[in-house]
């Protein structure tokens, strides 16, 4: 290696704390708007404190000028301290990514370099040496995606020709033992005094007795005595053993301009664990040559040192060795939607951790729920489902929000009623999104075809279309809630669910009573000989086990006590969660509350009833079990197989001819008994033919 190679400096490295971007974002949103004038900011750095890692120029929330009227969440730093030497800088934040890339980097750098050059010439840099490390930051804050593009520049005045390195070695190898001891002590004193701890450039003056003192650079005159060794010291953020840090560049320029020194001995001051580390620190000697000839003739004979002769500047920060800007994404900590999601997850996880270790959060969040009806029951069920972590919800309703609705239907407000009223399905989906942006909700505006409401022939195609649509909806969801307000409207959904063996939950309201139940499995769902639990329509044909059941609902009842819908909706959702956590799921037996049935007490969520019937007039609630009926008009094997065979033709027939279903299911019964009767008749060869009676 040539004895005179140029000094190669290690660039400053930037580090931006998240708080800086948060602060910039709120400034942009609340105060600046589209104003993109430059903002003065303060950077902070400290000498290197680790043998393998360089220190950085750091930006924090406090880097912005403090506002008296702005909420500041931490105490403002008063200037600096030993770990935070303040350095002035400037921020150019653009409004678009295009203008960010279009900024004239050359001239911006030149402007900042000029400031440093001016400070050197006016003497300001001697008084307040931190200005030598003035920096520039350009940025673009994308406040929709919460990403921040940025690029730092640390302007360095280029010496032409460059300074050459005569010597560079560890400080411990340069100083004598006595000198080293004294230098360490003096530096530690400088670093411990609040007056000087944040002053990054200084002089180390060593007298012939090896006594070292650290002084401000403005006291340079006082160090000029024979026998004194003089070193120009600075806080070096760099840790490398063969390269001094970036602040030395402008320091050399200052030294040359102010004191016209050709040979400069410098100290790259570095620390370890809060104390001067002379093994890590470097001492070197640099030679500054002033170009002869042409340059000497300019600027009053000062050559390049003349004030009007601004040297070139370099200093844009490299990004992994390349000359490109950097980018950071803070969506996870700034995007409100993401924050809402993680907060919601936290709640459920806490529940699982503290109370219910077997809670299956994945099952809940991946479940797809279909809600038929977006009225008092539908709105509440949707909210409760979201509270349990269900994210995929489809609401079906063909009605519009009317003025009386917002009071009892918890997803709607007055705005939804205006101008004739929004479609409920649409308004509900919007409302869910406002509550929890990550919900995946869909609204379907559709009427549910009902038996007993014959279809005129010109409407038949539409009705068929609706039937098919309903079939597809049931098919594509995991659980179906029947939350409509008429008995008939529940028939087709029940049949479709029985056909595909979907989890089905019915809620129905009377004036002051309610029914919440889960339908049993479909008729062809298993080879098990056990009796299936009943559906909503089975109850009509087969009496429930508890014959003292309250008089129930099923009348078209739109006037109900307001408390009923929230209670019933909540129970309906809790019932679903219970099914999800039961090992047999839809096939689970119906359990009764307060039973001595040992199976129920083992389930972490408690018993899993079949039916819950409640009465507000009694403030009471009871659980019941009912089994499926072979003559059920909705879920019996007869009906389901007819549907499987004849599809929509069967549906239309059932819709148009209300007695058809009874005939279908009753007829089977009759045929059975008829054939058994005939059998008797055939076997009898009695001669009492005269006594036989024509049937």
């Amino acid at each position, binding site marked *: 290696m040539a004895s005179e190679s140029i000094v190669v400096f290690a660039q400053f490295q930037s580090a931006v704390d998240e708080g800086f971007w948060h602060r910039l974002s709120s400034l942009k949103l609340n105060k600046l708007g589209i104003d993109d004038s430059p903002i003065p900011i303060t950077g902070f750095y400290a000498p290197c404190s680790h043998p393998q890692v360089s220190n950085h120029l750091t930006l924090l929330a406090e880097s912005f000028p403090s506002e008296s009227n702005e909420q500041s969440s931490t105490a403002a730093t008063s200037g600096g301290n030993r770990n935070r030497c303040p350095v002035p800088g400037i921020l150019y934040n653009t409004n678009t990514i295009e203008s960010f890339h279009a900024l004239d980097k050359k001239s911006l750098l030149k402007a900042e370099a000029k400031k440093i050059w001016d400070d050197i010439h006016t003497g300001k840099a001697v008084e307040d040496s931190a200005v030598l490390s003035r920096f520039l930051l350009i940025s673009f804050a994308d406040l929709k995606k919460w990403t921040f593009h940025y690029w730092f520049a640390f302007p360095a005045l280029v010496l032409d020709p460059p300074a050459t390195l005569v010597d560079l070695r560890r400080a411990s190898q340069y100083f004598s033992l006595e000198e080293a001891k004294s230098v360490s002590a003096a530096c530690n004193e400088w670093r411990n005094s609040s007056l000087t701890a944040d002053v990054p450039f200084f002089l180390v003056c060593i007298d012939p007795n090896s006594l070292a003192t650290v002084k401000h650079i403005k006291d340079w005159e006082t160090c000029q005595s024979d026998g004194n060794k003089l070193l120009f010291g600075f806080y070096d953020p760099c840790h490398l053993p063969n390269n001094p840090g970036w602040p030395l560049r402008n320091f050399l320029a200052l030294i040359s301009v102010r004191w016209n020194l050709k040979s400069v001995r410098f100290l790259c001051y570095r620390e370890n664990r809060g104390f001067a580390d002379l093994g890590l620190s470097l001492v070197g000697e640099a030679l500054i040559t002033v170009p002869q000839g042409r340059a000497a003739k300019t600027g009053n004979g000062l050559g390049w040192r003349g004030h009007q002769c601004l040297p070139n500047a370099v200093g844009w920060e490299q990004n992994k060795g390349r000359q490109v800007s950097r980018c*950071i994404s803070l969506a*996870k900590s700034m995007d409100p939607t993401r924050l809402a999601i993680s907060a919601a997850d936290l709640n459920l996880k806490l529940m699982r951790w503290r109370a219910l270790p077997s809670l299956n959060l994945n099952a809940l969040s991946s479940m797809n729920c279909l809600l038929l009806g977006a009225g008092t029951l539908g709105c509440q069920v949707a909210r409760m489902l979201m509270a349990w972590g269900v994210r995929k919800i489809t609401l079906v309703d063909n009605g519009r929000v009317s003025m009386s609705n917002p009071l009892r239907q918890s997803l709607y407000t007055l705005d939804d009623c205006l101008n004739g009223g929004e479609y409920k399905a649409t308004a509900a989906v919007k409302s869910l999104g406002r509550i929890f942006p990550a919900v995946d909700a869909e609204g379907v505006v559709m009427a549910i075809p009902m038996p007993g409401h014959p279809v005129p022939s010109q409407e038949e195609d539409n009705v068929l279309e609706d039937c098919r649509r309903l079939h597809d909806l049931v098919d594509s969801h995991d659980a179906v809630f029947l939350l409509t307000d008429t008995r008939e409207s529940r028939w087709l959904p029940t049949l479709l669910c029985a056909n595909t063996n979907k989890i089905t939950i019915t809620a129905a309201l009377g004036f002051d009573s309610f029914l919440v139940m889960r339908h049993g499995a479909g008729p062809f769902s298993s080879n098990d000989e056990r009796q299936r639990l009943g559906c909503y329509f089975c109850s009509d044909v087969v009496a429930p086990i508890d014959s003292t059941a309250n008089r129930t609902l099923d009348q078209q009842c739109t006037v109900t006590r307001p408390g009923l819908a929230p209670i019933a909706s909540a129970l309906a959702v809790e019932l679903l969660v219970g099914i999800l956590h039961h090992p047999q799921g839809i096939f689970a037996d119906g359990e009764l509350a307060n039973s001595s049935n040992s199976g129920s007490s083992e389930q972490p969520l408690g018993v899993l009833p079949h039916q819950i019937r409640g009465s507000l007039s009694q403030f009471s609630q009871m659980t019941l079990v009912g089994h499926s009926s072979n003559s059920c008009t909705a879920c019996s094997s007869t009906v389901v197989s007819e549907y499987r065979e004849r599809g929509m033709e069967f549906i239309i027939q059932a819709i148009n001819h209300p007695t058809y279903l009874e005939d279908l299911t009753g007829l089977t019964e009759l045929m059975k008994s008829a054939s058994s009767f005939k059998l008797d008749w055939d076997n009898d060869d009695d001669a009492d033919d005269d006594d036989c009676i024509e049937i």
Partner: protein
Amino acid sequence: MGTKEEARGTLSSTDFGVAASAFILSWNTICSSFPPWTWVLSHHQVEGYLSLENILLSSTQEEHGELSCPGPGKHSHQEDPIDVDDATLVHTNPCKVHYCDLHIIYCNSYRVPVLYFRAYDSDGEPLGFDEIEKDLPAYSKKALSDSKWTFITQEEHPYLNRPWYKLHPCGTSEWMKLLFHADDALAKTGVTIELYLVAWLSVVGHVVGLRIPLEMMKQL
């Protein structure tokens, strides 16, 4: 600290302040070679919390990988012809460095201190918990998975209004009770307030890989 609080393993907010001052004093004296804990006042200038920041978690050599966060138009912008002179060192092997910040904040509802932490790389990009876990020593990872008291959640920092990780405080009073009652002499001397944080941090620090120096522990 009232004996009632002591019995429950909790402490009042004023006692937290006392404990914090005592803690800072002893830490900065005994562990002077470690970076110091500082007391930060909230904007109300009434409440405060303990802070230890820029702790080096790990530092590894990084390959010249893809630059993170390309954003739109990544390839449409050529490298800018920025002047670089010969006197500038070109970074050929940049280090991937991870740092972490620790805050100890008093929780009014549980009446115990809570450890908040976050980690980030040298660009300031926040690290997710799975990345933090990679940097933790083996005994911490074990403590996190085994102990039923350790539940890490991500919640909004009470003063900085940004998400930080925290060690959920609901179990703290339980094991603090055990810790103090294990040593009758300790309970009797009545200096338990001052030592509360040292004791607390000796357990909690274990989880985040913060080793309390032996000299500090000797006080207990």
